């Protein structure tokens, strides 16, 4: 915006809140709680969740192990041991 052509620039008027440019009206009136705050942190859609899991596995904080046996054949897999 060219300041010299605004009421603030020409007349020193206090700039008005631009209710009509990108106003955050989306947050109003939803019937769902939890689109923000701590729930967003644990939302699987949040990439940080997966980064955190990978980090925890790497440092050994969490792990998972399992094995499968079918007759003489046996397979096992472990992550984070």
């Amino acid at each position, binding site marked *: 915006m060219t300041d010299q052509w605004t009421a603030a620039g020409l007349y020193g008027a206090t*700039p008005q809140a631009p209710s009509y440019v990108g106003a955050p*009206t989306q947050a109003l009136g939803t019937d769902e709680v939890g689109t923000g705050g701590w729930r967003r942190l644990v939302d699987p859609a949040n990439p940080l969740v997966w980064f955190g899991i990978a980090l925890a596995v790497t440092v050994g904080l969490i792990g998972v192990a399992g094995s499968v046996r079918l007759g003489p054949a046996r397979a096992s897999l472990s992550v984070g041991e």
Partner: protein
Amino acid sequence: MRAVATPSAPLIQGIASPNYRVDPAKFYPNTRRMRFPMRTGTAINGLGGTDSVQLRQTGIVAGLELRVYGTLTFGGTIAGTSMSTEWPLNIIQDCRLSANGQSNLMKCKGLTLRAAEIVSNPKLSDDGLDRAFGAATVNSGTLAFPTDDWGTFGANNLGPGVTVAATGAYTVDLAFFVPVASDQVSLIAAIFAQSQATNLTLEVQWATQNQILTLGGAATLATALNWAVTGLVYSIPNVGGEFVVPDLSMFHQIAETRFGGLVQGRNEHLLPGTGVGRRLMRVLQQVVSNSAPVAVNATNFTAIGWAYGGSDTPEVYPNGQEARVAAWRVAGVDLGARWGVILHDFASQFALRDLVDEGATSDLRVFEELVAAPTAGATQIAQETLFAAPVGA
């Protein structure tokens, strides 16, 4: 299921509107100035009557051109017939413009409209134009335009305080400009009209016969006056898929108030309607004695100024003559000599520096010191103000 809120409609000047972007830099090169009739020439509703027109809901309205024209036909025996000192400009006794819920953005007489136009447009001048004024013919300070016809029938002319010389049909043609935007360049305070929700109404109250003339006992008068309104409107351009508008966050107001009971010595008038968020651009004041303007000079005024708070007096002219000179320097027209217009101007030279912030000047008032007590003394005070759009008038 996640519900998505429907965004509330964006607002411009309190009116729900599609998505517009305030972007003066893109608006000015892309808009188109338009001029079209809002009211084609129509007979007025008679002297003392009121006419109104609802303006078209298009674009951004920056101003209205108002024309009053027709004839005054005097018949019978003309003796004892004279025009009042309100003729011709105050044929408009009250010009009222309401817009988008803001009642009375304009509320003033024709003389104030003319003086405000002259002050805000220094190109306009009345110098060298002969006009009948009282018993004389004068050529400066009349506030006349060369395009004006103040009443002409052959060699006879009408004017303020002029005795009507002969019966006949006198032609009249007067032009007024209603400044909707505070500045015709930046268009700040123009009115957003591009919406079905908008409501713009111009109402004109015409002077009564007694306000503009005294009719001799055996004289008759037939008026055939018309009015026409032309809108000065700017289109809302679409730039890169977005509609852009200039800064419309303010409204522009000229509101006139009358104070009576003037006395000899100091008279102070508290300006009505001041408040936070409002900025005073100009005050146009006229003192009348027995309905005739009191000329602004050293003989009539010993001081003119404005003040606020307890006794803060930022500007005072030591006599009327100096106030008159200061007004002439700003306007290029001698406002005070004949029409008695006192001007306090805060907008013409450098508005950013000079405008009076009404939020910081409580009890804002103007004052004048009169040498003599006027007869039935009264003063008309017109305030030209800018205020934030969502705030009430």
